[in-house]
């Protein structure tokens, strides 16, 4: 018994010294294994208790348990100490938050699509559907059905790429008006975005391929005031709440009355000083619009006395030039990574 007590005291002492000397969690763990593990020293002593006389055993067992409790308590305290040191060293870390970010791998939509999407989303909120159509179209849909017979002087302004007799690359999206009205009785409310082609020499303001958004609303009781209301709000959607829209009389064979639609130059805000965007007029051209010509309605079997409606078409790239303050329209089709990432 005395022997056991001495051994225990000796063990506890050695353990205390080693535990205090331990410098990390691993050292503490091996200490635990050496003393309290399956083959540890304390465990060996506990086995020795079985050889003691029966009356001494309870006392010896208690002595061993007391020592084990003390050792475990010390281990726990030491371990806690290491944890708080670890947290403290974590808290001591400090970085330069101004260091450049690791770039995200997000892609982007082309500025043309973004303008188309925002415009179409606006019209969809108002109950319009978005339709798309073929780029190779017939003379009938591009011209004849739109009240532009082959002798008409305004065919000149649609200098088109011809594919075969009667087929051409569409110079405007207006063919979609006819295709939609032929398929559906009124009411019809659509926007038709898409690529168009004209034989324009390419320069900083012209491309031979460009995008248009066409709009058409035909029902009973639709008038020019509705056209003004919708397009004004569209421009405010795209450019901000102070945007103004101007409707000027113009001429298109497929609308009557017809209008040219301008919107406040977003660069100079209509200041009328020198401006590279609007040339000093204070306005940029949005596109053409007007009340659908009775001949066009009749062509698709609508009754012009009963139904009225309007149509408009505007150029997307030209709007993009103004919206993103792009200096040269050719950038919209150039291999220009910088253009994409700047506007992404």
């Amino acid at each position, binding site marked *: 018994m005395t022997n056991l007590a001495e051994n225990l005291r000796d063990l506890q002492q050695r353990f205390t010294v080693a535990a205090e000397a331990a410098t990390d969690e691993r050292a503490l763990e091996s200490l635990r294994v050496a003393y309290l593990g399956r083959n540890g020293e304390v465990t060996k002593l506990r086995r020795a208790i079985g050889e003691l006389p029966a009356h001494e055993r309870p006392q010896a067992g208690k002595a061993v348990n007391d020592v084990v409790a003390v050792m475990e308590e010390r281990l726990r305290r030491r371990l806690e100490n290491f944890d708080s040191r670890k947290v403290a060293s974590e808290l001591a870390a400090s970085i330069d938050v101004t260091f450049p970010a690791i770039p995200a791998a997000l892609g982007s939509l082309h500025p043309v699509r973004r303008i188309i999407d925002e415009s179409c989303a606006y019209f969809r909120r108002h109950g319009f559907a978005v339709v798309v159509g073929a780029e190779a179209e017939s003379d009938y849909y591009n011209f004849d059905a739109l009240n532009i017979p082959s002798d008409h002087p305004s065919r000149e302004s649609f200098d088109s790429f*011809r594919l075969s007799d009667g087929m051409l690359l569409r110079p405007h999206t207006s063919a979609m008006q006819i295709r939609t009205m032929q398929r*559906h009785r009124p009411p019809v409310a659509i926007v038709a975005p898409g690529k168009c082609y004209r034989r324009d020499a390419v320069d900083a303001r012209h491309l031979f391929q460009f995008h248009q958004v066409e709009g058409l609303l035909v029902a009973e009781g639709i008038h020019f005031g509705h056209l003004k209301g919708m397009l004004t709000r569209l421009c405010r959607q795209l450019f901000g709440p102070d945007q103004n829209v101007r409707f000027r009389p113009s001429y298109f064979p497929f609308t009557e009355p017809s209008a040219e639609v301008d919107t406040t130059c977003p660069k100079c805000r209509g200041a009328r000083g020198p401006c590279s965007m609007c040339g000093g007029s204070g306005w940029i051209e949005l596109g053409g619009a007007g009340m659908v010509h009775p001949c066009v309605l009749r062509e698709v079997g609508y009754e012009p006395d009963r139904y009225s409606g309007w149509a408009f078409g505007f150029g997307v790239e030209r709007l993009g030039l103004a919206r993103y303050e792009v200096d040269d329209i050719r950038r919209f089709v150039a291999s220009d990574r910088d253009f994409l990432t700047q506007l992404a």
Partner: protein
Amino acid sequence: MLVPISWLREFVAVPNDAQAVADRLAMLGFPVAAIERRPRIAGVVVGRIATVERHPNADRLLVARVDVARPQAQTIATAATNVAAGQTIAVATIGATLPELTIRARTMRGVASEGMMISAGELALPAPWFEDGIMQLDGSLTPGTDVVEAFGLDGDVLDVEVTPNRPDAMAILGLARELAASYDLPLRVPSFVNPGRREEPPGARPAVSVESPDCERFVAQRFDGLRVGPAPAWMRIRLALAGQRPINNLVDVSNYVMLETGQPLHFYDAGEIAGGRLIVRDAHDGERLITLDGVERALSPRALVIADEARALGLAGLMGGASSEVTPATTAIVLEAANFNGPRIRRMSAALGLRTEASARHEKSLAPALTDAGAARASQLLTDFGATAYRPHAFGAPAAAAPPIALHVAEVERLLGLALPAERIVRHLRALGCEAVVTQNGTALSVTPPPWRRDLAIAADLVEEVARIEGYDRIPEALPSVPAHAISSAAFQLENAIALALAGLGYHEVVTHSLRRSGGPAAVEVRNPLSEEHRVLRESLAPGLIEYFAGAGEPIRVFEIGRVFARDGDRLVERTGAAFGFSVDGPGEPSWRDSAFLRLKGDCEALLRRVTGARAAVTPGSVPGFHPGKTGSVTLGDRRVGVIGAVDPRRAKACDLPGNAYLCLIDVDALPPHRTPHYRVRSKFPSTYRDLALTVDTAVAAAEIEEAIAQVLGSLCTEVRAFDEYRGPQVGEGRKSLAVRVTLQRSETTITDEEADDAVTRVLDALGERFGATIRT
């Protein structure tokens, strides 16, 4: 069209403020492309030369005494040589401001000069269009009159654009009428009464045969007693301000009347009309004609000519001929004021590559009634110049009055959303020259358009006129309530879903040219390309993206959605394609592994999963332009929807790609509609897995192994996935090692180790039998 404000102000008292008038014209439908600002000129008056003497001290100078309506005549020295006593000239008096100088009193070689006699150039007129030296004014002018005021030299010039429906507004008078209506000012219309009343002397009466239906009306009129010389200064200055070079009094009158009224005229030397008869006919095949520009032209019957009994004298509506041209010796002329079919003139103009001020008007189908007005105005001016005017003879259809148009007052509100009272509608229409009568108790109007407005035919045309004069800006904005309809947006939404998914996967959208330099045998050619570079419609989006990669230089991930075209027999097939991919610096992997391809395949699977809800598979295949060993077909079920692979390295090299590129092309039109995914409850019992290291022939595809394992294990297996491949000396020539993870799970109980081991044994037996697979140890 160049429009001097001063000329407009002869007919309507618009403000002498170019910007204000330009803004007003724009809001009437005539945008002003540019405003040509006139310089400020002051202190220039009319002078009459009393005497001219040699300068006492200088041989090359003259000294004139000039009456400028001051108490004393001014002494003015000049180096000009075209001065003589009696001339009326422009004098810049002391203190006058000219564009480039201010006039001060000065002494020229001992003679005190009190001002300066000036040239056209010094009045900021195009000097080469006027006489050398001092500008000669008209003798009728009173000395001392302010020259700037008298000739309207202070009025700016507007460059006005006129839409093709309004040839009547390609005229100062037409625009003045518009402004008068808009400003609600009176229009001072010149008289259109032809002063020609007399009968011609025997044999001098002009005869006209109209042999073509493309000439609706032809007014011919003879003038005698002409003296060809310079036109008066006021006419020359007006023409010059309007951009028309003065030539001589006859040519200038025809140009002046055209600019003022819009009716082109032509004057023939009366002595050069063989047989005294003008014939409007188709040209004979191969007929030759030297036009006024000195070009000899070979004509076809598609050309419409004015001929005499011997030969063609001129191209109808386009340009006269040299043979009957007015010369300095001309004393008698025959005037032509004709109306030709617009489309015929446009086709002729295009075929001959000749466009003139006259054809620009004729081709838009002028009103026949203008012919009489044009002849009358020319007749007045020529009479003023001392000519004898005989009476005009009109041939062809009489200018019939247009039928009246019924316009319901309510129609204005129905189309514009702006209610206007009948009186106001009537006032606007009358201001434009219409006759408007209120009918049906004030609810409707009967409107007869003026003879010069061929474009007004239906009620909607009149509504536009009313809106223009009322002002588009007075139409109130409103929001329509759009009635329900059944039109689908599906195609647009699909394109957008693809675009959004690809942007989310890190691709930047680009737009490339649809027209390319070359294409395959099924490519669609453009008949009238702008250049060799853009001759053929693209059959695939791939070439555009490869060019984009080459142009961008550094590696980039891009996509494009657009149309592709092909010819199928006589049919033109147009489909929507979506293409995405990326460029890479160069290969860095063994020949049997390509992680770039696998990354692209992962994006392809993610995209198709997103837009169709279905799982895509890639099966081996080859496509021209793609790498023969790194290309596959993209399929959804048994539907082939695209191609995926590495660009053929030879093609990459030819396109100057620094490394290579990987592309996936999706045929959007072939995609099935989106299927909504359904949720399946997973087994709540734990799963286990086994990794198999197999050795098979290189020809065995990973997908075949995966499929075979899934088939053998049935519902026991929840996932099977190859996760590594190795080829090399350890596995031997022609063989490869595949690592496959098989996940096993039961739905109603926990799977045991024994079951799992048994499953592996079954799999290995089957794979050994079917593929000669062995277990790699």
